[in-house]
């Protein structure tokens, strides 16, 4: 089978996903357009060699609707022949898009393919697309639907993570992100976002709160206690599925959960010949990819299972992996992953994650893939496993290996 190589990886800085966020004035099509243009301009490729652009987007309605990937291709002045497709694997959409792009290259369907994602959470709020899963009564009943935060708190309860544990994790995420920015560890991949008159509106991750300490985190009220215990009382639904738990300990809040932000990402993947044609050095090869489903009510334990699956596919063990990157959807998700796979904290999310910098749903997967690739290069290490927990109990993972 043809090998798929990563030739470039870019991302926008992440803007606060609110009306006062720096990227609120930037349309999602602009975010996607600018990362596609950056890939083209940085590598100097003829976009006629890009067979397809796969973009993740989790709320593909309104101005993110109607196949934003193809429209971004047109808007970025790519060759008319470049196709585009928007996909949705919830929080792992960006990584899934990359995996699909890689698969197209491996299968010989594409010479170059771009995987990435876009999400303007400030302009198209989460849940704008509705969901049979959550609101069709028959389905919600059957799947014991509860919002992710309930699952995150259930993970903390079931696997023994206290409020202190999750807050300490969050504090470290902030510290690592601050250090990474201070040392310029992200500069290779960051594409500042420009407005319609060409001025830069955002060049750094806006959501970070450097200097966050246990005291400031400790003052935050649990975010999911009210919907869990009072109205509508999701905890009781969780206990129907997990009756061995007496009571859910609500430990998550805005400070130890991923931030709501705007952003976009793109990764250029191609075969060996394309690299040679343009004199591009392959930065890494895609070694293995996998997605998996697991119990949907607790929802966020998929990474553990997909990590095992993708390691097996690659014929590797966790000890063959130098760096782990797991999206910080909620602190307990990462803590459980570390506990289940016995991964030391200094090998995972070494430059912080979504708790500090935010999680622009459709874009994150390709963002953290780029982040960990930069870190492998910076430290001279060889392999990384990228993971995200995914709505409805799924998990997606990718192993990359530097050449």
């Amino acid at each position, binding site marked *: 089978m043809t090998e798929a190589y990563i030739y470039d990886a870019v991302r926008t800085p992440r803007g606060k996903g609110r009306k006062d966020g720096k990227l609120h004035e930037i349309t999602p099509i602009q975010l996607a357009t600018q990362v596609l243009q950056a890939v083209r301009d940085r590598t100097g490729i003829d976009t006629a060699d890009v067979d397809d652009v796969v973009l993740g987007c989790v709320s593909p*309605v309104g101005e993110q609707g109607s196949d934003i990937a193809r429209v971004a291709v047109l808007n970025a002045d790519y060759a008319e022949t470049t196709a585009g497709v928007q996909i949705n694997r919830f929080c792992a959409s960006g990584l899934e898009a990359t995996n699909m792009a890689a698969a197209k290259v491996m299968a010989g369907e594409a010479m170059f393919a771009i995987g990435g994602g876009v999400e303007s959470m400030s302009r198209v709020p989460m*849940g*704008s*697309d*509705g*969901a049979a899963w*959550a*609101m*069709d*009564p*028959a389905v*919600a*009943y059957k799947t*014991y*639907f*509860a919002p992710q935060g309930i699952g995150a708190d259930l993970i903390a309860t079931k696997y023994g993570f206290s409020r202190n544990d999750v807050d300490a994790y969050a504090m470290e995420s902030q510290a690592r992100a601050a250090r990474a920015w201070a040392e310029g560890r992200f500069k290779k991949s960051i594409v500042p976002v420009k407005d319609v008159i060409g001025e830069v509106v955002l060049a750094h991750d806006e959501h970070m709160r450097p200097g966050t300490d246990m005291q400031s985190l400790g003052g935050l009220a649990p975010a999911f206690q009210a919907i869990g215990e009072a*109205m*509508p*009382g*999701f905890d*009781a*639904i969780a*206990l*129907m599925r997990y*009756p*061995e*738990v*007496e*009571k859910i300990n609500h430990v998550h809040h805005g400070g130890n959960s991923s931030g709501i932000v705007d952003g976009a990402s793109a990764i250029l993947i191609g075969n060996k010949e394309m690299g040679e044609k343009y004199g591009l050095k392959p930065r890494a090869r895609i070694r293995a990819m996998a997605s998996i489903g697991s119990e949907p009510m607790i929802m966020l334990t998929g990474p553990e299972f997909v990590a095992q699956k993708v390691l097996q596919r690659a014929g590797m063990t966790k000890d063959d992996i130098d760096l782990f990157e797991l999206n910080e959807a909620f602190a307990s998700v990462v803590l459980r992953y570390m506990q289940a796979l016995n991964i030391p904290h200094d090998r995972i999310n070494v430059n912080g994650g979504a708790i500090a910098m935010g999680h622009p749903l459709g874009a994150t997967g390709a963002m953290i893939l780029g982040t960990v690739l930069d870190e492998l290069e910076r430290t001279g290490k060889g392999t990384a496993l990228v993971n995200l927990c995914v709505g409805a109990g799924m998990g997606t993972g990718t192993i990359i290996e530097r050449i």
Partner: protein
Amino acid sequence: MTTAIHTELDADGILLLTIDVPGQSMNVITPEVQADLAAAIERLKTDDAVKGAVLTSGKASGFMAGADLKGMGALFGGGAALPEGKSKMAALFDGVFGLNKLLRDLETCGKPVAAAVNGLALGGGLEFVLACHYRVVADNPKITLGLPEIMVGLFPGAGGTQRLPRLMGIQPALMYLLQGKNMSPQEALGFGVVQEVAPAADIVARAKAWVKANPNGGVQPWDTKNFKFPGGPATALNPNFAQIFVGGTAMTHVNAGDNMNAPRAILSAVYEGCQVPMDLAIRIESKYFAKVVADPQAGNMIRSLFVSKQAAEKGARRPKDVPPAPTKKVAMLGAGLMGAGIAMVSAQAGIEVVLLDTTMEAAEKGKAYTADRLAKKKMPADKAQAILDRIKPTTDYADLAGCDLVIEAVFETREIKARVTQATEAVLGPNVIFGSNTSTLPITGLAEAWSKPENFIGIHFFSPVEKMPLVEIIVGKKTGPAAIAKALDYVAQIRKTPIVVNDSRGFYTSRCFGTYVQEGLALLGEGTTPALIENVGKQMGMPVGPLAVNDEVGLDLSYKVAQQTKADLGDDYKGGPGEAVIEKMHELGRQGRKNAKGFYVYPEGGGKKFLWPDLVQTVAGGLAASQPSAADVKERLLYRQLVECARCFAEGVLETPQDGDLGAIFGWGFAPFTGGPFSHMDTVGIANVVATLDRLAQQHGARFAPPQLLRDMAARGDSFYAQAARRAA
């Protein structure tokens, strides 16, 4: 066929349709009503002289109640041959869609139709009203309008789930549909469910006036092009719509658990139906209705919660040839918690009460219980005083003179009971009926203290008396028909639901309920995660977990009962597997809620109780390495009760499955959605019940062994209710 809807055309061409079902005190939906309405609709459509119609009732009792639940048996199970090429579900759909379509024909007949609602309109009755274009209700605040079908496991199947949301908005409509709550005329007016509230004498005139003034009024808002759904568009992309269903489904799931069919069917019918035009919407509704009706659950619930309950309250078990024997004055012996409660419900029913205890202080305290409860209910002072005036506290047996019924609720020892029994007989003589509220001591033995044991009976109340709906009547070996009739007439007076059982230790309810608790203790003793035991108990439909309920009753009491039973039975005593757990808790002085430490810890200051963290370590040496699944726990908690209920039937403690089902649901809160343990065993199939019990007996011991009765029934392919029907016939 007799006429159920009378028609009268006035000079303005308005056809007055008066529903007056012959032979019924209240209008219900009968085939005649449907046929007459169909004829009226045809006339509205075809007769140019008819300009519109007004629908009203000829009954003073109200407009119309819904379907005749007793007559609905035909829907459940059916048995008629299926039309060629039809599946069972499709045939069922055709059956239930008829009325739905008829009301749709009424609202699309092209001419204005108004309802003049003189009194209650419930269930199908309200659905008739909703299908009219204009609705006038009499201004009596006592009139109830509602769709209470969910109370018996059904849901409105004649457009109610579709028209109510289109009138009042989805969120409030779901509240009424899912809670079965009724509304007053003013509330209905506020919600836009009716358009006018008028004096009762004027409603027909007001309805006619509207018809006359609105010759083009024969179109429902939802059939117009610019219909705006109250509360915003009914589409998945309207965040409000989405939020209502996310939240509403979760709340319903939490409240109704996984067990009830009707609530989820209502949610789905509203969710799917509100997104499409009415013609399609009512078909969707009828499909969900057919699904609900096809499941045994609704039939079981209707039979127990409605048919059997009403029959019991109307004297199904009363000896027919004994003349009515209402109680005028009751002698209440013992003014403790039970005595005080019995005094209260008796006085509230207009019965004079002599409340006797050993000290005046105790007797007065018993009376104060009523004053306290009535004050909490915010009853007007004069009404409360009239009730209190009927309770006479005393310490003097001579004050019992004139009482025509005695109820005894003194300490649970034979000696004390015998003493008060004899002291009472000394004043009243042995011809008065004597009822004992004992919960544990066999009646036959207690009856020896009364010279005429045929006049001695058990009248077992549940605590708190004023809230618990059941009274268990216990027939001793020598109890006669007059005593049974007297006790049942009294229970009817205080408006509770009676069951009649024969004498046995723990009678029926205490004996069977105890097995639920004991099996919980057995699981705990094996090192099962306590939360799993408790959550599964609740999730299977019991009101509380077995450990929590034991804490409420008192672990010291459980210990004492076990010791007493051991002493009484000697070598025959078979200790349950949870006994060691109770002994350990007793040793540690953990008595339950009463001393704030039992299986749970009760924090000072009223904080939420939580399971004692050292519980499993203390009573089982730690969590078992291999934990049972939730399904295993549920099976044990359920079948332990079922087998005991079957034994009660086999031993003759129970004579009818109806008594068994009512006693279980209303006595100890046995999962109401099953219709009770006997309905449940019939539904599962007796052969399957036997197979499960045999397996459980092998795994967990003889306490699960099925009685021979069940094996015989299984061999015959029989069921409890089929057998009861044969006996009745």
